[in-house]
């Protein structure tokens, strides 16, 4: 039994099946990259995993327990599953420190002192300890995204979802964010990431999944997907990436 099991999940928007019976297993400590063209369902899949979208059919299990469908305590699920968004989504009316400590205090019931200690430790790790009292709009995109990662980590999630977290960044800011993800992977954090950073996916993933038409068209170790893809569509996609100079 895998840590995260996604079993034949369907998600419809109108008449389109964005997810059409998608199946995916993620083991503990694995880093799984989702690649594929825009609109192939990567983001939707991530949003379904932590219940931001409801699924129309199929089942999602976390550590053996069903976490999709009726009657599930979604707030409890989201305590275990963190997500970082493409557009950061920091709370603009709160300082960096308040952004990070809000959920630990209100959801986990930590005291202000405990929460701030945790926040400062994490901020120090990502090199932003001096920005604790700043407001998000005064930070660069890369700094904002690092804060957003810290905000998710402060809940000590067992699974972290990363939704194209470098797509909104200027190229020179991408590395500072990816370095943190690399560290997290080395520490054994279980992660599922939707990404267009093929080089990074190749380097950091235990498994790469190519999404097409709402299903995983091909999955395997990075060497298989990027160097010896078995499916024609995967090969065509990877070739387009190479032609664009992105791999």
């Amino acid at each position, binding site marked *: 039994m895998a840590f995260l099991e996604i079993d034949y999940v369907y998600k419809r928007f109108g008449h389109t099946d964005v997810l059409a019976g998608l199946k995916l297993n993620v083991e503990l400590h694995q880093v799984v990259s989702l690649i594929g063209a825009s609109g192939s369902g990567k983001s939707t899949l991530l949003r379904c995993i*932590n219940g*931001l979208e409801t699924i129309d059919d199929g089942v999602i299990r976390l550590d053996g327990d069903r976490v999709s469908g009726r009657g599930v305590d*979604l*707030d*409890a699920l*989201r*305590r275990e599953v*963190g*997500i970082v*968004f493409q*557009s950061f*989504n*920091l*709370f*603009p*009316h709160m300082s960096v420190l308040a952004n990070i400590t*809000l*959920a630990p205090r*209100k*959801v*986990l019931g930590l005291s202000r002192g405990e929460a701030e200690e945790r926040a400062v430790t994490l901020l120090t790790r990502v090199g932003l300890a001096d920005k604790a009292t700043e*407001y998000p*709009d*005064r*930070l660069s995109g890369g700094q904002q995204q690092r804060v957003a990662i810290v*905000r*998710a980590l402060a*809940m000590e999630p067992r699974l972290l979802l990363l939704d194209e977290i470098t797509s909104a960044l200027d190229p020179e800011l991408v590395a500072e964010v990816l370095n943190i993800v690399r560290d997290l992977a080395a520490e054994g954090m279980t992660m599922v990431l939707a990404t267009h950073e093929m080089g990074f996916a190749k380097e950091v993933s235990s498994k790469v999944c190519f999404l097409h038409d709402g299903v995983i068209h091909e999955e395997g170790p990075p060497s298989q997907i990027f160097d010896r893809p078995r499916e024609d569509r995967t090969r065509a996609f990877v070739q387009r990436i190479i032609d664009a100079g992105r791999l």
Partner: protein
Amino acid sequence: MNDRTAPARPAPKRVGRVLTYRKASIVALAFPPAGVPALVHSVRAARLARTGDVEIARMEGEKARDWSWYAVGVGAAVYVVAFLIWLLTTNDGAVRKVFFNPDVLTSGSAWHSLLKGFWINVKVFLIAECVVLVWALVIAIMRLLPGDACRPVRFLATVYVDVFRGVPSILVIYIVGLGFAQADVPVVGNLADESYAIIALSLTYGAYVSEVYRAGIESVHWSQTAAARSLGLSYTQTLRHVVVPQAIRRSIPPLLNDFIGLQKDTALIGVLGMLEVLNRSRFINNSQGTLAAYSMAALLFLAVTIPFTRLLDHLVRRQQAKTQGGR
């Protein structure tokens, strides 16, 4: 190659004609102090354009334009002020005597009486504003509750807003202030007139302000809610800590607008018969045979509403400076 000559540089092709602003400067003559220089520059621009000094002509043309704008901006202000002075002095100073009768304006007892009355208005709007701040938020959140189960609640809140936005506040004051007492409604059948005034104005302005809040809440991008919920915050916690604080900040300018309306509408509560500022000024006017007390009441309202506006402008700017970087 010593006989090489630099190729003759062709005269530059001009982009457009020289703008002389002739018509504008002629119109500007309506205010000669600016109109005359405008016309002078305009004439010079035209002459220089003919002689080929296009660069200088362009500068002269621009001066003609600037002077023409001065004629509009300064001239309009000067004529408005002149009109007001004429109004005050015409007819042997009749306007001045009616509206600004010096005997009444400088009468300590008149001011004392008006201030005593105005204190009632101030109390009513201060309390009503506190009530409205909370009450309107309750209504706004009721209107935005999600799901089928809350449809009746949403419907009730919508009906409330429609009714109290649609009925003139003076009617609400009559209905609440006279009707509740006459019908001896339980709990609220025997209150002071001031309390009725507060209830009536809170009901009316609660409806207005709830719409302001609702627009504010809806303007907070859904991704903020997604981020909050994804951290495990509940629906209520998300509203309380993430959505409502941002919504209220955005609502402050229109909210302020409604509060100034509320402050001014306290002039209507005199219909319930209490001795607030408008009734008192009417008594003074009747005994003195002028309308000066009305001007004084107007000054009292301005003394509150203008600083109130400036204070909130200041607070909004300070908040923006804190949360927004170099934009």
